[in-house]
Structure formats: C-alpha cells, structure tokens
C-alpha cells in the first residue's frame, strides 16, 4: 500500500510563504507528477512528504496514518535526489546496502536484494566501483537502485533526469516508466519539464508559486486546461493566446472578435460573459491549418520558419504585435516577411475569461 494524502499543507520560511494550502491525494500505485516552473515549491513539497522538512500547517497521511510529525526514516519512503546524493566514499554495493544495514537486515537478505536490484537496473558490473568512477547515467541507476532495494511504500523522485544529456534522458524516462509498471509502487515525481510529465504521469499536478493550479490526467490537462497558466505550460510549443472581445454570448456559444480580422464562434457556456468583455482565445500550434482561400482566414506575417522535415514550425505575427506559432504538416516554403493565411478551427479553440479561467463547454 502506498496512499499519500496531504490536507491543507502550508510551509513558510520566516514570513515568506512557499506553499499555500496544498491538498492532494496520491493513490496506491499511482505515478503522480508534480510539474511547475523552477522555484514554485515542488522540491519543498516533496521534502515535506519525505519528512525531511515539517509543514507549518496541515496534515500528511500515509495509508491513513498521520505521519506529519514522524521522522523521515520511519515513513518507509525512498527518495531519489536531483544530484543523486550517492555517498562518494562508499562503493556502489555499500551505497545500496547502507539503508538496509541501518535497519539491521540480515546480511543474506541484503545481498539478495542488491543482486536483484542490480540485475533489474543493470548495475551489476560496477558494484565495486566508487560513484566517482561512474558516468552520469550509471550514477542515476545506482541512485534509483538505492531506492529500489529499500522496497519502500512509495518513491519520491526530485528531477531525477535533469542532470542527464538529452538522449539519455529520453531512454531513462522510458526505463523509469517500465520500472513503475513492474514495481507497481506509488511514485511522486517532480519535474519542471512538461514533456516528462506528459509521458510519465498517471496524473499531473501543475503548480505555480506554491499553489496547485490543476490536477488531472495528462490528456485532460492538454485538452481542457483550467486556466491560462496551465494552458501555457502544458504542451510544446506553447498554446497561442490571443486577446479577443466578446461580441455576443449565450449558454451554448460565444462569438468573439480578435486581431487580424479574427472572428470565431466557440461552443462554450458563455452565460457568465457579457458582450464587450475582454477574453483570451487559446489555440494550439498543431491545430492551426493553412487556409485554402476560403472564408474565416486570419492574415499573418511570417517572422521565422523552421523546417523540421515532417512539419514546419512557423512563427508569425497577426495585426502587428500578436505573435502566433503554427506547426504546419508540410515541408514549408514560407519565407520571412511573407503574408500567410491561416485557419484557426473553432472546435479546437479554448476560451478564457478576463480572470484567466477556462470558460467551460456545456
């Protein structure tokens, strides 16, 4: 079992509040990814769960038992640190054994667990080396191995891939996903990289400035971001956000006018909107299409075109200073400064009110 429940967690350093009223429920066996920009308090939250730090308010439960005041050692969790934090003066084997020796596990069982973990993570060939003699990827495996041998109720991982190079990051990411499937243990995974979050998570928690912005499955967050921050954070390239004015609003649809002759009817519940209200229209770069000369096109000017082969990333401006990125499914011939007619499909649009909150569809 590895169910973690946070209730109204606060953390302040002196007068500065780092975490505001965080409530969260991590299911048994779930891979929960905490994502958000640097400095938003992800590591702090993880350290609170680990027991390395105490909240200034709120309650932490593991499997229904209040552990808010319980020490890190007695929570039965294992943590993988961003810097790996391997003990430099011990061999890999000693690194793995250290936590087990501390709970006075019999030698035979320690050996067996190390053998098992090192086979699973393919670190057997360098069990007798020091961490200083390992490459980054190997250190990463040892750090994970040190957590695995403990057989914890849950894993806590703080940006475990951020020190690896791009290629290794992708392969290790896949291995982590496989490891999670195999162990079926709860994992709380912290990252600032939304691609990692999308690919690994059962559920994503988007955080900003010590607050939870949205919790949900990756595709739910992608398809229905709750506010402008989540809309801009999830998905790469970022969602395009254009300022619009409400022309008319009803319970089933909202008509908006935007820059560059943009005029659209979005099928959302606009009963809280009035004509003349400011709003923000969101559309993902991949949803934008090239106009075939029909009605409703938006006139844009190309500022940069990146031909990637299967697709072309076009950076453009509408009506002077509204930037737009479009990913077009063809090998581009667009050149800088050239005009371009683009279609923004209304069924792919997201509408946010003046407070930045999503206007839900019916």
């Amino acid at each position: 079992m590895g169910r973690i429940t946070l209730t109204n967690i606060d953390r302040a350093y002196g007068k500065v509040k780092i975490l505001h009223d965080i409530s969260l429920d991590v299911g048994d066996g779930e891979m929960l990814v905490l994502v958000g920009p640097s400095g938003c308090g992800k590591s702090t939250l993880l350290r609170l769960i680990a027991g390395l730090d105490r909240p200034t308010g709120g309650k932490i439960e593991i499997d229904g038992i209040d552990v808010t005041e319980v020490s890190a050692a007695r929570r039965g969790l294992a943590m993988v640190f961003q810097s790996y934090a391997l003990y430099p003066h011990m061999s890999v084997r000693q690194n793995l054994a250290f936590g087990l020796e501390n709970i006075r596990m019999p030698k035979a069982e320690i050996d067996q667990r190390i053998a098992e973990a090192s086979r699973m993570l393919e670190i057997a060939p360098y069990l007798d080396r020091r961490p200083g003699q390992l490459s980054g990827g190997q250190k990463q495996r040892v750090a994970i191995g040190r957590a695995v041998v403990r057989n914890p109720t849950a894993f806590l991982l703080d940006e475990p891939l951020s020190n690896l190079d791009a290629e290794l990051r992708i392969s290790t990411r896949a291995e982590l996903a496989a490891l999670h499937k195999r162990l079926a243990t709860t994992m709380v995974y912290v990252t600032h990289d939304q691609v990692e979050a999308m690919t690994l998570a059962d559920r994503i928690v988007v955080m900003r400035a010590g607050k939870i912005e949205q919790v949900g499955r990756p595709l739910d967050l992608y398809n229905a971001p709750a506010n402008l921050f989540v809309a801009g954070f999830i998905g790469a390239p970022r969602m395009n956000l254009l300022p619009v004015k409400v022309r008319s609003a009803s319970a089933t649809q909202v008509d908006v006018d935007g820059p560059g002759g943009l005029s659209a009817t979005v099928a959302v519940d606009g009963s809280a909107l009035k004509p003349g209200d400011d709003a923000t229209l969101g559309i993902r770069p991949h949803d934008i299409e090239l106009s075939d000369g029909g009605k409703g096109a938006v006139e844009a000017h190309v500022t940069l075109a990146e031909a990637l082969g299967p697709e072309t990333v076009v950076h453009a401006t509408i009506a002077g200073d509204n930037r737009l990125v479009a990913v077009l499914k063809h090998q581009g011939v667009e050149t800088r400064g050239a005009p371009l007619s683009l279609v923004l499909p209304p069924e792919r649009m997201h509408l946010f009110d003046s407070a930045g909150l999503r206007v839900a569809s019916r």
Partner: protein
Amino acid sequence: MVGHPQRPVAKAPKDIVKVNIADRQPVREIGFATENYTEPFVHFDFMRYLRNSVFVTAMATLITLLTNSMAAFALSKYKFRGRDFTMLLIVGTLMVPLSVILVPLYSVVSAVGLLDSLWGVILPTVATPTGVFLLRQYMLTIPDELLDAARMDNASEWQIYWRIVLPLAAPALAVLAIFSVVWRWNDFLWPLVVLSRKELYTLQVGLNTYAGELNVQWHYILAMTVVTMIPVVLVFVFLQRYITSGIAGTGLK
C-alpha cells in the same frame, strides 16, 4: 685623608718549575661527541619522557579530532539560533593567548584534581578554535542532500556524523591531525606548569632539567633537541603532500 695601602713586596719563588713547551696538550678537542646522544639515554630518563610525550600527543590529537569535528558538524550542518554568533565566539578565542589565561586555567585544572597528571596536560588543549574553524569550513562543502539521503536511509544523526561526514572530511582531519601533533609535541609552558613530578615530564619539560640555576649543559640540551625534532620532521616529510593539498582544499592559506 686617605692613606696609601702598603703593597706587599713579592718574594722570589723558592723552586722554579720548568715546563717544556713542546709537551703542551690541547684542552679542547674537535670530534664527534656521540656520548652527548648516548649519555642522556643512560642517565637521563629519556625513554620515560618520550613515552609521556607520545601519550600526550596521541591522546590530545585523537580527542582534538573527535571534539572539534563534532563541534564543526553541529556548526555547519544544523541550523539553530545563535549559530553564527557561537562560531564567532569560538574563533574569537584565537585572540586570547595562553599566557593570559594561564593562571585561571591553572586554578581550574587544580580544582578538578588534574594537577600533576598527563590528563591535566591533555584536556585543556583539545578544544582548538583553529581546528573547529578549519573543519567547519570543509564540512560546509559537503552537500546537504547527502545528509538527507542518509536520513532517508534510516541513519541516525550519530551515524550521519560517523559514517558520512567524518569520512568525507578526511582531508581536513588529516591537516588538523598534523597541526595537532606538532602543537602538542612542542608544548612547553603548559606541561611545565601542570607537571611537577619528574616521572611525568614530557620531553620538552625534561630537557629543561639540563638548564640548571648555575650551569646550563648545552651539549645535552642541543643533542636532545635534535632528537625531539625527529618525529616532527618525519611528520612533515611523509605528510607534506597532505598538508599542502589539504590546506588548499580547506580554503585556508
């Protein structure tokens, strides 16, 4: 008026001693006086003094390393109110020389009954501000995540100190060990004050017995000084590499 004293009139000697100038012998000779080295080993209690010196130096160094590293651990890895002030206070004691606190220190040692015992020489010297400062600066460079990892690994705070921090601070400990050996080996004033029984003398104090009130036996003092320097020289010869790299590593110059 002052009278002139009568001068005695010198009489001619009765016998005349004649000495052949060719038979004269030199009073001084030049040569290797190895007996200056061997004599003290026979008459002077060199072996006993050496044993005392070695005991004092080894014990004081061990206790210095232990206590100073514990203080440094607390001052570098725990956050508590007044931490920086405490550090300042400790380093501040560097400005107070031994001669200033000699008398109060003597009263303390006498009050706890350590006068005339080797522990009375050892214990007052073990808390060195230099050592605490040097070790703390080094321990600050050990990442906190390592300690957190050990906490997750069920290590007690003592185990963190003993199994993580101490081994990682080994270069700084080596430097302090060398300093401590040299300091304690060469100590003279404090052992002289504390020790009055001859069989407890350390080498440096023992050597002093050659400097009497009326006569200084320079030949023995100088010979034995050479002998007492040997351990310190050896320490430097063999650990030179550690001293330079360790001092550079601790950021102390």
